Every structure is written in structure tokens, then in C-alpha cells.
């Protein structure tokens, strides 16, 4: 998916800020139809999302990465607080 240098360049540009096809085509050495084609592939893979902005369509990176990070941290803290609960019970049991 990202082994294609054009798609990689598009993802990196969208990582900076959401952009329309014309913006991407203007900035990158990629023709407008090719940009559209790459965006279609990236969209199908769930990597980018599009939204209308006036008469244009703006593409942005899917926030899935932040969601995935959240899930990881949620699992981490769930385990940490469970440890804390157990440890607190032990600490309580050891009180005179």
C-alpha cells in the first residue's frame, strides 16, 4: 500500500493537513487524475477519508491511528488499575 512512492507522498502530505485533489496535484509531481486514482485506493484501504468542503472534496488521514493508540492505552491502564486494586487490598490486609 505505502510501498508506492506516490501514495506515500500523498499520505505524508495529508499527515500535515487535509487537502483537496488540486492541492495535492499542485504540490506533488503527480498528475491530477493519478492523484484521484491513488486517493481512491487509499480510501478503499481505510487510510484516508474524504469530506465535502464547499464545492470541493477534502481528503484527510483517517483518525484510526489515534483510536488504535487509545485502545492500547485503555487496555494498559485497565491492567494497571487492576494491579493497583489488588495491591491496595494486600496493603490493607497487612495493616495491624
Amino acid at each position, binding site marked *: *500500500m*505505502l510501498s508506492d512512492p506516490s501514495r*506515500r507522498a500523498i*499520505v*505524508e502530505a*495529508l*499527515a*500535515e*493537513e*487535509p487537502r483537496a485533489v488540486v492541492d495535492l496535484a499542485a504540490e506533488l509531481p503527480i498528475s491530477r487524475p493519478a492523484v484521484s486514482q491513488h486517493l481512491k485506493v487509499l480510501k*478503499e*484501504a*481505510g*487510510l484516508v477519508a474524504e*469530506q465535502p468542503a464547499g464545492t470541493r472534496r477534502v481528503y484527510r*488521514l*483517517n*483518525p*484510526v*491511528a*489515534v*483510536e*488504535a*493508540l*487509545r485502545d*492500547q*492505552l*485503555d487496555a*494498559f*491502564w*485497565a*491492567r*494497571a*488499575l*487492576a*494491579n*493497583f*486494586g489488588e*495491591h*491496595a*487490598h494486600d*496493603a*490493607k490486609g497487612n495493616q495491624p
Partner: protein
Amino acid sequence: MTSTTPEVLRTVTVPLPVEQAFRVFTEQFDLIKPREHNLMPVPVARTLMEVRPGGRILDEAADGTQCVWGEVIAVEPPELLRFAWLIGPDWQVQPRENASEVEVRFAPEGDGTLVSLRHFRLDQHGPGAGSMPAALGGDNGWPLYLARFAELAGVTAGA
């Protein structure tokens, strides 16, 4: 464009007075942090939290190697602990400006203490949430991040 940035909210009630709950959490964080999560290639011997503003939170291996992955921001015993979380989505340490934050509050509840943990500013770690020019070409920068991103997105797309 407005969007809600996801955050983690977790609570636990422990059968200790607030003062003691705060002390156990901060002084024995070593026993609380899930041991399997760390950034070092060698087994972690202990986790250390320097409980003062600016203090470091670090994992230490048996051979003395250290990995600093947090920075204490605020300590208000027995009610509040806040620290910066420097570990990015790829479990690599990121610069301070890309850190998220963890806030832990301790409040009396019956005979015990309600501990509320909030991990927020998660988008600080993500793409577009701060430029990281130095990391752009590095092995631990964009290439790794984007590979992981693609992996995650692929899983989602396939779901």
C-alpha cells in the same frame, strides 16, 4: 473542522484512605505498571517514579540501562498526580512536545478512595499533531509510524 479527540478514562475504588492510596500509587508504581509493557530490549528490573514536578518516570533493566518514558508535571498529595507520557503509538519514546498527559485523581469514597485516571491529548502523538522534521527520515520516525498506520488501517478496512 472540529472533532472529539479520544481519551482514556478509567476508575478504580480501593479500600485505603486517600493519603495511603496516593502513596501506594506513587511510591509503588513499580508494582502497578504492567511489567510486559516496556521499550527496552532487556527485561525490566524496576520502574521508578521521581515524585516531584520535573521528576522522571523510567524503567531500569538489571544491567542498569534506563529508559525514561515519563515526566512528572504536578504532584498535589493526596489528591492529584499528573505526568507527561512520552511513549508514541509505536512504543518508542517521543520528544516532550509530542507527549500526551496522564492525570490521576484521588477522592474519598466511603471508607476507601476513588481513583480516576484520565489519559488525554493523545493526538499529540499522531500524524499532523506537531511537525517532527528530525524524525521524518529516521528508522523510528515516519517510515515506522506509517507502516504501523497502514497495518491498523488495513485491519479496520478488512473488518
